[in-house]
């Protein structure tokens, strides 16, 4: 599932924004180190993204991304053993500029020891009305294969289809807006093979296998406004509504300000709010083993509220000694994520409480990014 989500995120950023105003994206290379730490989980690694024009009409982008995972999460310590894992992802994307249109094709390949994901995607964007409007359409198809450590015969598959439509609009000389709509259908094995649910037995509880539906359809619509402030700064506001056939509705809101300072610096600050309700078949504690046809205890489909605050800084170098290098930026950002679960309980000290009376779980995590960008 991690790989599938990563691919969706990459598809959104590699394919869709490729069409900024009927010019191909800049030739650029980014080298990033990322580190997530929180809830007993550490994930870090590099990401390298290189984009280069080939002739006047073609731009090629390649990305290599690694997650090195060390997990002793709440799920792991209460039901299994801590583990380490490595995931590698490679992607290739080609943009073709023709008139006011950009046609894009992409492919992503992700591998870890018990999960492989392959995704192909295509999109087209078109500028209209004197380049005030950009309309884009995209489609991606993914094929995942899920295994299970210690069970070489375990093999499940997932099929994903994603349709995207987007419009960007210049509203005034200081204001941009964009609207995006995503529809995703997933079919196949949609659960984590290691996770278990729990149900009441006598005065205690025990674990049992989760049972998920084999289909899921989701819709997401988002609106964004970006405003140029009078003293040269950019203010971004964004809202997304999400709904799926598992009964989950979610609201996401984001606010960000980017403030240039002293010619070479850009400082950013952002706040992100997120709230979702639980899936229809989620419960922290089921009354019995076969209580209903679908049963899950995955905190990612429980009800919760998340708040994330972040800051960042970027410094631009002018490189005079290397003629082909236009500029370099050094960037650092740190986000602090706070998630408070409404109906997912912390079982690390379960014996001290009656079943269903354990304290609610909270997650605190830090997300660090350090990256260098080179324009050439």
């Amino acid at each position, binding site marked *: 599932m991690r790989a599938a*989500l990563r691919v969706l995120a990459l598809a959104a950023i590699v394919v869709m924004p490729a069409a900024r105003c009927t010019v191909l994206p800049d030739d650029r290379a980014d080298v990033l180190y990322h580190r997530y730490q929180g809830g007993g989980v550490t994930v870090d690694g590099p990401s390298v993204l290189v984009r280069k024009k080939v002739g006047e009409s073609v731009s090629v982008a390649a990305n290599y991304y690694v997650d090195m995972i060390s997990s002793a999460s709440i799920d792991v310590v209460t039901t299994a053993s801590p583990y380490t894992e490595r995931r590698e992802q490679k992607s290739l994307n080609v943009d073709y500029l023709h008139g006011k249109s950009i046609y894009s094709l992409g492919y992503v390949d992700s591998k870890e020891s018990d999960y492989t994901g392959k995704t192909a995607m295509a999109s087209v964007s078109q500028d209209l009305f004197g380049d005030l409007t950009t309309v884009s359409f995209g489609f991606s198809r993914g094929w995942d294969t899920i295994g299970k450590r210690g069970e070489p015969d375990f093999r499940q598959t997932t099929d994903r289809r994603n349709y995207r439509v987007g419009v960007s609009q210049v509203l005034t000389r200081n204001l941009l807006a964009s609207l995006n709509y*995503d529809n995703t259908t997933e079919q196949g094995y949609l659960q984590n093979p290691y996770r278990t649910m729990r149900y009441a037995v006598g005065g205690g509880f025990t674990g049992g296998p989760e049972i998920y539906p084999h289909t899921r359809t989701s819709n997401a619509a988002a609106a964004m406004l970006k405003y140029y402030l009078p003293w040269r700064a950019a203010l971004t506001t964004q809202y997304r509504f999400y709904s799926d056939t598992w009964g989950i509705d979610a609201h996401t809101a984001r606010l960000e300000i980017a403030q240039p300072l002293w010619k070479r610096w850009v400082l950013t600050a952002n706040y992100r709010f997120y709230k979702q309700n639980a899936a229809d078949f989620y419960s922290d504690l089921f009354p019995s083993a076969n209580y209903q046809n679908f049963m899950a205890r995955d905190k990612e489909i429980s009800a919760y509220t998340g708040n994330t605050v972040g800051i960042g800084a970027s410094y631009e170098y002018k490189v005079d000694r290397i003629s082909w290098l236009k500029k370099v930026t050094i960037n650092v950002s740190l986000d602090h994520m706070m998630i408070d679960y409404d109906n997912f309980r912390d079982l690390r000290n379960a014996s001290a409480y009656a079943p269903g009376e354990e304290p609610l779980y909270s997650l605190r995590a830090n997300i660090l990014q350090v990256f260098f960008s080179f324009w050439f």
Partner: protein
Amino acid sequence: MKRFTLTRWRHVLLLGAVVTTGVACAPIEPWVKPYEREHLADPIMAIDPDPVSSSYRDHVFEVREAAKGAMGGAGGGCGCT
């Protein structure tokens, strides 16, 4: 809460397509001229200034949240005519 069904989403999409088509056929003068787009062309107004970073951040959230999609920009509006 009343659920927003797939059929209703399709109706919204269809309505959007009809409106877009209607607008596209009308003779519209750009109300922000190319020479008025200096602020929009400023790098700080880029919808996604650092794709490698936003991709990673989206991934971190999507792994931990049920919701996904639609947060990427569709591009446009940089004023680089």
